[in-house]
């Protein structure tokens, strides 16, 4: 029986390649186990490199086209706006501008630039750069992807002199137009032809505490300390964002010391690190809320009904009874492990200037199933034989609760809410759908209840604006940005008043009033504000400033504070020199690596001998 020679060669080649690859990998395992300890022995430059797990994809580091948060967080450390949110309480504070004033009707904003502001390459930062940046966004639609909405109300941006910028608005507004627009250096960007396609991933020139040095898909983002930062250079040399595609892997890296900081953990992941030596876990109050939206009878721009929400929900009493049947504190404990703050209004406590802090008497919709049952009894919704109430047309009240299939929290919250609503005689069917579908159906009003949530910006204007009658969608659901498919003339009045109120205290009252009013309408049952769960190597770094002071998150702030303030342990005040060496266990890995290498080597030798023997056999 003959067989093709090619096959023989193929097999031999395969075996050889396999042995080679395996021995190569095993051999490197043996050599590379030595590297961690070698790296530790390096000089202080390694101690001053702060490594952060980068858990999401970076779309681009171009400040005009960036949309995903991973890139945005790096850009926030890099490019300063005119005015930014302070570390103490998210209050407005000077960044490129030192001070600002606004004319009486709120249409002309004049900013005085700081005299000592410089770009990272040493060139002075002037009003020219500011005007140039605003013009880029205002005149080029391709550069509006990121910040376009923020320049819509601007009619002109001028520079009367090198230290003054004058922004003129087409309509008065109370929100400062100088925040959030990152100013870029004119002398760099004017040389770029296709600005929208510019990757901005190498040796960028910027004004914040760190500048982008390099970015690569597998090597992550490396940022160098900007020596010219006007508040003073940061205390470390570099920040490296190391790409990790799963938080669990990043947590292992934190345990081994491959990264120094991991943000955005789940409560289970957070708990797993609580007893880890040299790792400090931190739970900071954040700006994102979680809610159950209740469809009050969605209507389009022309006041025509849209969607298929259950008509019984148009009765305020039914919506309020639903809110009263849901036990928020149990949800917070069981679903979030207590890592959050109980909520009523949409604007979270991290914005003390705008946060409506309800008193007990203001919490008219607090958890009370007995009261909820009574409300429904009094309103004439009688219970049927099966315990389910019937609506005014005699149909049993059956509601859908829609959640996102990607979210484990939605599924477990629904597990609780279903029986709670059954207690007040309402039957609930839980439906989980893909994110895109939830967005689409909620915009078209095709829901009874659904899980929703928003991260709130420091200025509440936008969040309030999407609850006005003007932001309702067209009949086909397009061109709409409405948050709850609800609007009310009284709310519109409050929105319009705060929109132009230049007195901070008066505006704050109006905003709180609007938030409170929406609460009483029971269209968006806000359950909690999320905590941001973070962990870092306390044997290497400390001194993080939180925003707001003492309670807020370290990562993902409105401004650079958390990572600007990071300090090597050796330079921390009162640092007693308890240098923790990490050589434990290194003898075992080396032994194991050598062992693997040896086994593979022996295997290879045996294989070669066998081959030689058999071929000589064959010849005989």
């Amino acid at each position, binding site marked *: *029986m003959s067989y*093709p020679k090619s*096959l*023989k060669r193929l*097999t031999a080649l*395969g*075996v050889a390649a*396999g042995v080679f*690859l395996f021995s190569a990998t095993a051999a*490197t*395992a043996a*050599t*590379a186990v030595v590297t*961690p300890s070698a790296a530790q022995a390096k000089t202080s430059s390694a101690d001053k490199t702060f*490594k952060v797990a980068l858990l999401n*994809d970076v779309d681009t580091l*171009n400040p005009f086209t960036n*949309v995903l948060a991973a890139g945005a967080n790096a850009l926030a450390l890099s490019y300063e706006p005119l005015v930014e949110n302070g570390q103490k309480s998210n209050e407005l504070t000077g960044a490129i501008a030192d001070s600002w004033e606004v004319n009486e009707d709120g249409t002309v904003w004049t900013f005085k630039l700081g005299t000592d502001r410089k770009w990272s390459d040493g060139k002075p930062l002037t009003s020219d750069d500011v005007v140039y940046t605003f013009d880029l966004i205002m005149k080029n639609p*391709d550069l509006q*992807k990121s910040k*376009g*909405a*923020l320049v*819509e109300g601007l009619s002109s941006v001028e520079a009367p002199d090198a230290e003054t910028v004058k922004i003129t608005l087409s309509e008065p507004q109370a929100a400062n137009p100088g925040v959030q627009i990152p100013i870029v250096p004119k002398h760099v960007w004017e040389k770029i032809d296709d600005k929208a*396609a510019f*990757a901005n991933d190498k040796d960028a020139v910027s004004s914040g505490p760190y500048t982008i040095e390099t970015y690569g*898909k*597998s*090597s*992550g983002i490396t940022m160098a300390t900007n020596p010219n930062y006007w508040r003073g250079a940061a205390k470390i040399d*570099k920040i490296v964002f*190391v*790409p*990790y*595609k*799963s938080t*669990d*892997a*990043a947590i*292992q*890296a934190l*345990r*081994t010391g*491959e990264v120094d900081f991991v943000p955005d953990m789940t409560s289970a992941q957070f708990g797993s690190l609580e007893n880890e030596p040299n790792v400090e876990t931190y739970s900071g109050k954040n700006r994102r809320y979680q809610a159950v939206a209740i469809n009050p009878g969605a209507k389009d721009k022309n006041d025509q009904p849209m969607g298929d929400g259950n008509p019984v929900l148009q009765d305020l009493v039914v919506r309020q009874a639903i809110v009263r049947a849901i036990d928020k504190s149990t949800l917070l404990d069981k679903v979030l492990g207590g890592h959050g703050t109980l909520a009523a209004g949409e604007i979270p406590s991290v914005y003390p200037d705008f946060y409506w802090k309800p008193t007990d008497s203001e919490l008219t919709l607090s958890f009370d199933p007995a009261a909820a049952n009574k409300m429904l009894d009094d309103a004439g919704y009688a219970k049927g034989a099966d315990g389910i109430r019937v609506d005014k047309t005699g149909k049993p009240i059956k509601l859908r609760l829609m959640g996102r299939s*990607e979210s484990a929290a939605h599924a477990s919250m629904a597990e609780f809410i279903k029986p709670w609503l059954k207690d007040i005689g309402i039957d609930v069917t839980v439906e989980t759908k*893909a994110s*895109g*579908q939830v*967005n689409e*159906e909620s915009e078209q009003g095709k829901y009874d209840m659904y899980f929703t949530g928003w991260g709130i*910006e420091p200025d509440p204007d*936008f969040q309030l604006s999407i609850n006005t009658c003007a932001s309702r969608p067209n009949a086909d659901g397009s*061109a*709409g*940005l409405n948050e709850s498919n609800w609007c009310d003339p009284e709310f519109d009045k409050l929105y319009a008043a705060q929109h132009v109120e230049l007195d901070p205290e008066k505006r704050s009252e109006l905003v709180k009033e609007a938030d409170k009013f929406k609460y009483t309408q029971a269209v968006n049952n806000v359950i909690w504000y999320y905590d941001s769960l973070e962990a870092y190597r306390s044997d290497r770094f400390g001194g993080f400033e939180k925003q707001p002071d003492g309670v807020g998150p370290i990562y993902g702030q409105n401004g650079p504070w958390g990572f600007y303030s990071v300090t090597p342990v050796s330079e921390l005040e009162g640092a007693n020199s308890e240098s923790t060496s990490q050589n434990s*266990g290194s003898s075992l890995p080396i032994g*194991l690596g050598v062992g693997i290498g040896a086994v593979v080597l022996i295997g290879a030798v045996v294989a070669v001998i066998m081959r030689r023997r*058999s071929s000589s*056999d*064959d010849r005989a």
Partner: protein
Amino acid sequence: MTDTLSRGPGDSPGLGLEADIAPDIDEPKRSSSWARYTLVKAGGAAISMVMVILLGFFAFRIIPGDPVRLLTDGRQVSPEQLDIIRDTYGLNDPLIVQFFTYLTDMLKGDLGQSFVYNQPVTELIGERIGPTLLLSGTAALLSIVVGLWIGQRAAWKRGSFFDKANTGIALILWSVPTFWLGMLVLMTFAGSLKLFPTGGMMTVASDAQGFDLFLDIAHHMVLPVLTMAAVVYAHYLMVMRASLLEEMSGDYLTTARAKGLREDLVRRRHAVPNALLPTVTLIFMALGGIISGAVTVETIFSWPGLGYLTFQSLSQQDYPVLQGTFVVFSAIVIVMNFFADLLYRVLDPRLRK
């Protein structure tokens, strides 16, 4: 040594036999010429490719949701701005116009521009396909070599401890969820023993060059390659074992033994090459699929490859990237199947005239 010729009760025929007995009606006649055979197969591949290109466009647009809304989720935007973004991506055009643009661009080798990354799709795929090929290619090679080798040993000594232990271990690993196994491997060998890095393809912020870089990459590859290989090698093992068991009753083996060949040589030189035939097709089909199968492993070990890009684009409804990866993945499978068809004819003399 005659006991090896009797078939044990548990060893039912595998895939190989049926394929040999029942002629495939799609197969060109065996007497047909090489050129004709190749042409028919190539034509079939081309038709599949056209179908893939058509499907690639429409399949992802059936998914409900608006990519522009997903892109701007939770951010301050105005309806006018959304409209501008839709315009730049051509999403306001009628579907048929979008389809025509897609087709003409495709003919020019242009897969479009990603919504999310603001980068040409060919570029996005280009910079990720290397790492994916490296990872899944090495894993495929390892699993094929190990699987086939254990498979033929196990068949030859079926019922022995070697056979039972190896088939058992392979089947356990085969049924284990990849994510779970990967996490376990990661926690043990990277997290606790600190033998290997916890993720990525190379050490970040290091300036390793040349051989050092090669070592660094190899070091990062160990855990993902082992995880991927551990999960799939059972496939090759079982097929190889089954097809060798088929061959073991062959008269030609008795002849070989009668010639006085050592048992080892009878197995390696006579039985195995014949048993390999049905596995070749399997290997090539698996090679096509293994690239798309790397998604989970790439995610656990933060490997900068194509799998994660696809996953990410699906959640963002980044149509151009989805279309691009779909077409590329499918093209690889089609080409591999085509090669399998050709190679099968080369390897099996009975298919040649």
